[in-house]
């Protein structure tokens, strides 16, 4: 009988900080956008309302993936699970795909409002950073 032991590095303090911040960022984003998609976010402007109203069903599904995968990834990060890497990756792919489609059909809110352009850029940048961080933690052996 033999035993296999996996050496895990000591959990760095910043993992907890990053995990909690990503959970808050992605959780609040998921809540807001899914509420808006469901028509339960009051007082959105007419452009934004038209944007959500015109979304085809498949786009709503990919948006759900883009929103919920990072939330699950943040939880996985808290649990020090290597699944965080793949979940962040799935979220990033969905975010990029949705934005590419939105820009291609000229429906992106970023095209009509500078604030939305900045928010879109920040969202993509954070999604990339989350993925890079999870990959680094996995390479250091922090994630199981």
């Amino acid at each position, binding site marked *: 009988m033999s035993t296999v032991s996996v050496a895990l590095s000591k959990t760095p303090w910043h993992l907890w900080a990053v995990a909690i911040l990503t959970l808050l960022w992605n959780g609040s984003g998921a809540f807001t956008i899914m509420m808006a998609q469901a028509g339960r*976010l009051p007082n959105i402007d007419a452009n934004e309302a*038209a944007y959500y109203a015109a979304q085809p069903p498949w786009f709503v599904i990919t948006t759900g993936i883009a929103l919920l995968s990072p939330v699950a990834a943040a939880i996985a990060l808290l649990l020090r699970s290597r699944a965080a890497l793949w979940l962040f990756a799935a979220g990033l792919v969905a975010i990029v795909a949705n934005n590419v489609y939105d820009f291609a059909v000229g*429906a992106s809110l970023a095209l009509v409002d500078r604030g939305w352009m900045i928010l879109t850029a920040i969202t993509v940048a954070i999604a990339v950073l989350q993925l890079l961080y999870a990959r680094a933690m996995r390479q250091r052996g922090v994630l199981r």
Partner: protein
Amino acid sequence: MSSTFASRIVLSLVLAQGAFLVAAQTAAAPRQSHEWPTVAMDSDLQARRDLRPVNFSAKPFTAAGAPDAVRDYHVVRHDVLVDLPRSEAIFNLWLSQDPDFEAVDEMGRQSHSFQYFVDAPAFGAFYQRSGGGAEQLHPLVIVRGEEIHYNGNLIARVVEPFYDATTDPASGGWGPVVRTVAVKQDRKRVSFSLPLSVFDGKDGSAPLANPVAIHYFLELYRFGSTTGTIEQAVAQVATVDAPITVVWPQDIQDSRASSRPLVAVNILTTTLPRQRGRLFDAEKVDVGTLELGPDRGRARWSTLSDVDGDGDLDLLAFFNAVHLGLSCIDADVRLTGEVLEDEIRKVFVGVDANPLVECH
């Protein structure tokens, strides 16, 4: 064996009792004080050339092969909306063929026609009759598509027993004209509206001031012969006026919306002066009941938003434009739905103009 015999005895007794009750009811029932016209269609009257006042040679038809044509001409869909705030009833009819209301055959019978028999039940008449009082008539209106070929208009008549048709040969014996309205046709669809005042009684009573319902029967005819089926339904009665504005696809900025056109409807919350309450509370609209246009398209997405910037929440609903069934014959577009008002669900109706160009 004995149980079969017993069953037969019981069945016979039940049948005998039923027959006795029917006979007793028939004997007790008061005789009708009048008879309805026996001339169902003036097509029959028009068969007599001396009663036909119009030139019938414009586009002659023959009745040859009528059975097939009669079979093919049927109602696909129909509805009536009673818009109480605007005191009118809107009739929509979808047929299986493009009806030709102007062509007549060599006998003067109109190629295609229809008749609505519209009845507004009156509570007063019900209570009087159930209390043993005399039969009380309330207006039964007949809308005669059969008369369109005379001058292109639709004639509504109030049914009047013993109406003298000799002075009004087009009447078919039904009764005097209460309204002449324009009939609008877009291929297989026919639409018209009637003011609710056609139901007012001669004594000034207005049964639709507080309507319970409007019932109607609908029958189609070809060359004066019935197609053999009668549709019957109850009109939708909308009692609450909803302030709406419609934003058409060309005015919606989302380019994806223009590729799959969306129509946005703002349903506005309105308040009484000096904050004494709300005239219409869009927050209490049941979004699942919203229907827009003749085809009664359903809302695909909605949200609450202060559309008019007056500080209260309005309802912003989006509809797929291709599901509305709007055509050039629709001067207006109507939104209906249910709203909770004083804890009671009421049907509301809102109207805005249809920007579609006129029919050619």
